[in-house]
């Protein structure tokens, strides 16, 4: 019995000093294998902020105007782009006018990609059902200016078409013209700027999506009603895809690799702790 325990301790000691390359390989495999096997886990949607977001958008009447701000760049695209696709699909299916813009320079191109591809699949027409105003610098200050005049900030859209030549913008004057503002945010400027400047100052409902790492800080906005709903990370995107009924959505596909990767990381933490306690018991530094 004692020898078995000693062997176990030695194994744990070895595992505790595991080469980081082994960890990297196992993490890579935990993502690659489920993806290649096309493994899909069922994604039940409970009482999550993503459901609140869906229900708010779903309750908007046809013909409503929604401002969608693409406040992210390619680095956070794997999490935020599926959200954008699911949201734009939902909005366009409900015949809601989508006005896109970006607080991040590269967000304008990513937004264009999403809106044009979804619009093409649903037969929506640019400048009648959707448009992309593009990127403007200024963050929160720019949002305040949008509150007094949209036209002053965006005299043309991303393709240099004059504001007055875009039919769907005829009745849009400032932020209060919108029924909802949705921001897909990867950092600053993003959700806090929209909540503080557009939501609190001009009274326009704000909803949003963000990376999983930044989601915890926005729960305070949900509790106070400063945000109508939130999509947090790939799980939030998967929830929205499920609720909208998107078949073969990128986020739902990503749930299986993420599940396995989380289990692998948790296993490493457990192994690391067992090794730590073994060393501590032997009087090591740990």
């Amino acid at each position, binding site marked *: 019995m004692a020898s078995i325990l000693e062997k176990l301790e030695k194994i744990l000691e070895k595992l505790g000093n*595991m080469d*980081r390359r082994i*960890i*990297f390989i196992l*993490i890579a495999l935990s993502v690659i294998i489920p993806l290649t096997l096309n493994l899909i*886990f069922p*994604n*039940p949607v*409970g*009482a*999550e902020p993503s459901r609140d977001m869906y229900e708010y958008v779903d309750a908007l009447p046809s013909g409503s105007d929604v401002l969608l701000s693409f406040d992210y*760049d*390619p*680095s*956070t*695209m*794997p999490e935020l782009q599926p959200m954008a696709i699911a949201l734009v699909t939902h909005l366009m299916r409900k015949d809601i006018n989508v006005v896109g813009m970006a607080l991040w*320079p*590269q967000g304008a*191109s*990513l937004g*264009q*990609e999403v809106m*044009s591809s979804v619009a093409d699949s649903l037969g929506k027409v640019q400048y009648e059902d959707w448009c992309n105003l593009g990127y403007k*610098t*200024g*963050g929160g*200050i*720019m949002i305040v*200016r949008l509150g*007094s*005049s949209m036209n*002053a*900030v965006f005299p043309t859209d*991303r*393709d240099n078409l004059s504001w007055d030549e875009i039919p769907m913008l005829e009745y849009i004057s400032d932020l209060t013209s919108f029924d909802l503002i949705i921001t897909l945010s990867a950092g600053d400027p993003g959700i806090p700027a929209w909540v503080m400047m557009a939501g609190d*100052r001009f009274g326009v409902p704000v909803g949003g999506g963000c990376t*999983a790492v930044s*989601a*915890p800080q926005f*729960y*305070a906005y949900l*509790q106070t009603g400063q945000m109508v709903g939130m999509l947090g990370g790939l799980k939030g995107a998967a929830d929205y895809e499920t609720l909208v009924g998107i078949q073969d959505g990128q986020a739902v596909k990503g*749930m*299986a690799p*993420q*599940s*396995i*990767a*989380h289990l*692998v*990381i*948790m296993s*490493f*933490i457990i*192994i*690391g*702790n067992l090794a*730590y306690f073994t060393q501590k018991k032997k009087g090591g530094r*740990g």
Partner: protein
Amino acid sequence: MRLILPLSITFVTGMIMVLHFFVPHQPIKFLGDNLQEWYMIVASAAIFLGALNLMHVHFRKIKLKLKNWKYSPVTIIGFMLMFVTGLIYGVTAARPFDFMFMNMVAPMGATMFSLLAFFVASAAFRAFRASNWRATLLLTSAFIVMLGQVPIGAMIWDKIPLAKVWLMSIPNTAGQRAVMIGAAMGVVSTSLRMIFGIERSYLGGTD
């Protein structure tokens, strides 16, 4: 004069913006709106300044053969390629710039961020220890949130996602709110110190 002029500009513009929040009427509205537009113009100019600085830093690195200078030509070529393509063909959809952005910049950016998962796993393995009851509490919460954030959590036990939502909505929100209120009070006090000329570090120097 070198001190009084910037402090006066800060005081006047700061006061206009404070008044603009509370008094949405002329002439404050006009002044506030214009200042906001000036800010956007200055911020746009800063982007050009940033691009010039980027080129300056990398050309200097190559010239002096500083550490890792071999990567600098890649940065310069990449920057110039995107810049010239955008200048010639424009940045609208279905143009070479857009093609390069979607097929080169976007996948490379996503790859860089994805590397984080590997480092998080390695760091968690080495540093996430249940060394005392507080660390154990944090570890347990982390496990619940990690499981609740993926469908496998509900497959193991359907109460895990509910526990995750509770953790995020109650203890997490309490902590986040304290941080947010603290930060907001800090922003207000620093802004007032700048407007009234008490805080002068933004002017540079040691005054």
